[in-house]
């Protein structure tokens, strides 16, 4: 336990000191990893804790990205953009979730997939608002502003990195508390045996919807952090292949551990970064590697190292 705290402290210290020695590209990658971690953690509240596999999370991610982009184009305040993105993701998840959580298993997955693609086609067709296939361009990396108190310029990559790091850490800590709270335990119950939870006097559908909405909030939050980094948003963000990212990284890291999606995100970007240097067909290589890793590391990387590798060290 003490070792775990020590490792966690070291990791956070490393993240805090990263801008002092890392270049611009490494920070850019780190921001992407943080964004994907938040996205995948929210997704895993659905998959690992509630037992629902959603294939439409990119829809909510894109809702967050577009909402934040629209706000930033008219009102240059980073915080407002992020909150707007989060709310957009949450509300769209609440509305579409109301229709999706009536079903489970494959039916639920198919419904989320089609609603996700619906958001994609809206992003593609509604040119007046979304810019169509051109997307929205020239989104400023607005300063972080609390009126009358402080203003921090975000133009330097290091500053924006700290902003994303702070938001991500808060989001991760909050989700950690949620999965260990009574609500989190009840979700695990629904995953294992929904009938028994109903006979505890709990409305399964409402709890599923709540879980779906929280996942949507996290997707929206993650999405809202992207436009200030890239300065553009385009419809492919909402495409279903984008929904596959949290699925892949969560499976890679492990669905039954809290940190699984984070570890998966790190590995995802490391592998991707290496492969794209050699081939433009990186996805097929990446897919093969993920299949390979999932087959070797049953239950995910985190379980593999904490239950197989770590005991070997202890014995030695």
């Amino acid at each position, binding site marked *: 336990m003490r070792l775990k705290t020590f490792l966690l402290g070291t990791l956070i210290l490393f993240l805090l000191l990263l801008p002092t020695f890392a270049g611009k590209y490494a920070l850019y990658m780190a921001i992407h990893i943080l964004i994907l971690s938040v996205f995948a953690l929210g997704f895993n509240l659905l998959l690992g804790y509630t037992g629902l596999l959603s294939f439409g999370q990119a829809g909510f991610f894109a809702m967050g990205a577009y909402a934040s982009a629209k706000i930033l184009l008219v009102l240059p305040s980073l915080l407002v953009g992020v909150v707007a993105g989060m709310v957009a993701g949450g509300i769209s998840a609440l509305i579409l979730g109301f229709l999706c959580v009536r079903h489970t298993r494959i039916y639920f997955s198919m419904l989320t997939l089609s609603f996700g693609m619906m958001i994609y086609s809206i992003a593609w067709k509604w040119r007046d608002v979304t810019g169509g296939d051109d997307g929205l361009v020239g989104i400023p990396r607005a300063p972080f502003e609390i009126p009358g108190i402080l203003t921090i310029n975000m133009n330097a990559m290091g500053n924006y990195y700290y902003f994303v790091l702070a938001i991500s850490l808060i989001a991760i800590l909050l989700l950690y508390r*949620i999965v260990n*709270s*009574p609500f989190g*335990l009840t979700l695990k*119950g629904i995953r294992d045996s929904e009938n028994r*939870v*109903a*006979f505890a006097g709990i409305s399964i559908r409402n709890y599923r919807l709540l879980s779906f909405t929280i996942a949507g909030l996290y997707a929206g939050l993650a999405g809202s952090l992207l436009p200030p980094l890239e300065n553009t948003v385009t419809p492919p963000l909402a495409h279903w292949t984008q929904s596959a990212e949290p699925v892949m990284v969560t499976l890679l890291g492990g669905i039954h551990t809290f940190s699984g999606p984070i570890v998966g995100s790190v590995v995802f970007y490391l592998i991707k970064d290496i492969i794209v240097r050699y081939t433009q067909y990186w996805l097929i290589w990446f897919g093969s590697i993920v299949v390979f890793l999932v087959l070797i590391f049953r239950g995910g990387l985190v379980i593999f190292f904490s239950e197989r590798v770590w005991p070997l060290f202890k014995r030695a």
Partner: protein
Amino acid sequence: MAELLRTEKLRKYFGVVSAADDIDLHIEEGILTSVIGPNGAGKTTLINLLTGNILADSGKVIFCDEDITHLPIHKRVRKGICRSFQIMNIFPKLTVLENLQIPILSLMNRSLRFIKPVDRHTDVNDRVERLLEEVALTDKRDFPAGTLSHGDQRLLEIGLAMAPEPRLLFLDEPTAGMNPVERVKILENIRRLSRERQSTFVIVEHDMDIVFSLSDRIIVLHRGQILADGKPEEIKQNEDVRKVYLGEELFWEKI
């Protein structure tokens, strides 16, 4: 004795098979009632109808003078009806402690707390401890429920069914698949709990020894209808019941 639950012409057909055929039934408070009948008589269907697992084609279910025919499961539980299942229905991946925390949290309206860890809800955990003692699983609290012996899993299942503190509790074959030693243990527990608790038990059971030694009242179902209803001695004398169980005479003589 006060009436707890009543059905009026309760009917459920699966295709042309009648699982419940205009059943009129009263369940009184504090009377340990057993439901017996040959396979396919509609025992489990009856419980499913009363607890909300399936909805009736027609007829009414009235609980404490309130029509609950169309209420979903969780609302019936809130009103005071709960059940255990014939097929094991626990949370196999969670520990025994966590299993019981889920219904107790719900009972104490804590399920929608998002921040404070479960362990720090001390008043909830006190009640969970008491329940653990009642079902004699205190020493196994930290085991994943799926690793318990069959008998202990059944005890946990009964604990889960009792946790919402229902006024009316249905146990669907609580001793199914148990060895004689475990069976006795479960029975003692049921008897003790029905005495100590404010709950009224209704038990579906195949084992006649258990039924006749335990119950205050027996209801015999046959093809979705009530064939006989009365005290154990009356049921033993009933000719219709004997006919239904024809071919099982040996077993009747034993009683």
